[in-house]
C-alpha cells in the first residue's frame, strides 16, 4: 500500500518537474527542476531495491552533470536573463509531433502483455557487481568497462581542447 502511494507520488513528481523543466522561462530554475527529476528517479531506483544504481545516479547525474550545467549557465548568461520562447508555429508543430509520437508509443507498449518473471528477488551486493564488472567470463562485462574508460578519456581530452582559451600571439 505504502509502496503504491510512494510510487504514484514519485511518478507524479517526475512528470511535473520534467514539464516544468522544458517550459519555464527562467534558466536556472530549469536546472533546479532537472535536479529534482533526477533525484526522483533515484528514489524510484531505491524502491526497486537497486541501491547501487540509485547511488550512482545521485552521484554522477544529480551531483555531477547538473552542477556542470549550472556552471555553464552562470558562465553564459545573466542571472536575470529570461529565455526566449519559441514562435507559436514551432511550438504547435512540435507539440503535435510529440503527441503523435507519444500516442503511438503508448499504444504499442500497452498492447503488449508483459509477463513478469515470478522469480525470487535476488539481492545483489557490491561484491557481485564488482566481480561481474571486471570478469571476462560469459557473464563478465570487462569489455564494456574498458571501452567506456577509453570513451571517458577521449571526451575529457576533447572537452579540454575545445574549451581552451586561444593563446594570444606574442607581438
Amino acid at each position, binding site marked *: 500500500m505504502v509502496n503504491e502511494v510512494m510510487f504514484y507520488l514519485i511518478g507524479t513528481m517526475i512528470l511535473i518537474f520534467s514539464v516544468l523543466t522544458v517550459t519555464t522561462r527562467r534558466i536556472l530554475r530549469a536546472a533546479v527542476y532537472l535536479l529534482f527529476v533526477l533525484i526522483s528517479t533515484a528514489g524510484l531506483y531505491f524502491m526497486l531495491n537497486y541501491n547501487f544504481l540509485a547511488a550512482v545516479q545521485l552521484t554522477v547525474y544529480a551531483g555531477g552533470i547538473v552542477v556542470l550545467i549550472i556552471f555553464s549557465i552562470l558562465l553564459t548568461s545573466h542571472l536575470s536573463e529570461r529565455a526566449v520562447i519559441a514562435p507559436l508555429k514551432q511550438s504547435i508543430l512540435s507539440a503535435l509531433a510529440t503527441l503523435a509520437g507519444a500516442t503511438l508509443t503508448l499504444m504499442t*507498449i500497452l498492447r503488449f502483455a508483459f509477463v513478469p518473471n515470478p522469480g525470487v528477488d*535476488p539481492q545483489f551486493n557490491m561484491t557481485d557487481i564488482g566481480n561481474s564488472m571486471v570478469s571476462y567470463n560469459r557473464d563478465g562485462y570487462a569489455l564494456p568497462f574498458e571501452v567506456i574508460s577509453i570513451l571517458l578519456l577521449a571526451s575529457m581530452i576533447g572537452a579540454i581542447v575545445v*574549451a581552451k582559451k586561444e593563446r594570444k600571439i606574442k607581438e
Partner: protein
Amino acid sequence: MIQNIPLSYFLVISTLMFFIGIYGFLTRRNLITMLMSIELILNSVNINFVAFNRYLYPQQLQGHFFMLIVIAVAAAESAVAIAIIINIYRNFKSVDVENVDEMKY
C-alpha cells in the same frame, strides 16, 4: 519488483518523460536548456532498462550494466557539449540556437 505495480506503469512514465524531453529539445531556444532536455531523454531510457531488468530478468545484471554505461556516456557527452557551448558563446556572444545556422544553403 514493487507489489501491485505492473511493468507498464514504469513504461508509461518513461515514455512520457521521453516525449517531454523531445518537446523540450524542439522548442527551447537556449542551447543549455536543449542539453537539459537531452538529459531527460537519457534518463527516461535508464528507467526503462532498470524496469525491464527488474520485472523480466531479475537474475541477470545486463540492465544494470547498460544503465551504468548510459550514465557514463551521458556524463561524457554533457561535458563535451558544454565545452562546445562555451566555445560558441565565445564566438557568437550568445547561446541562442538560431545563431548557429552557418551551415546552410
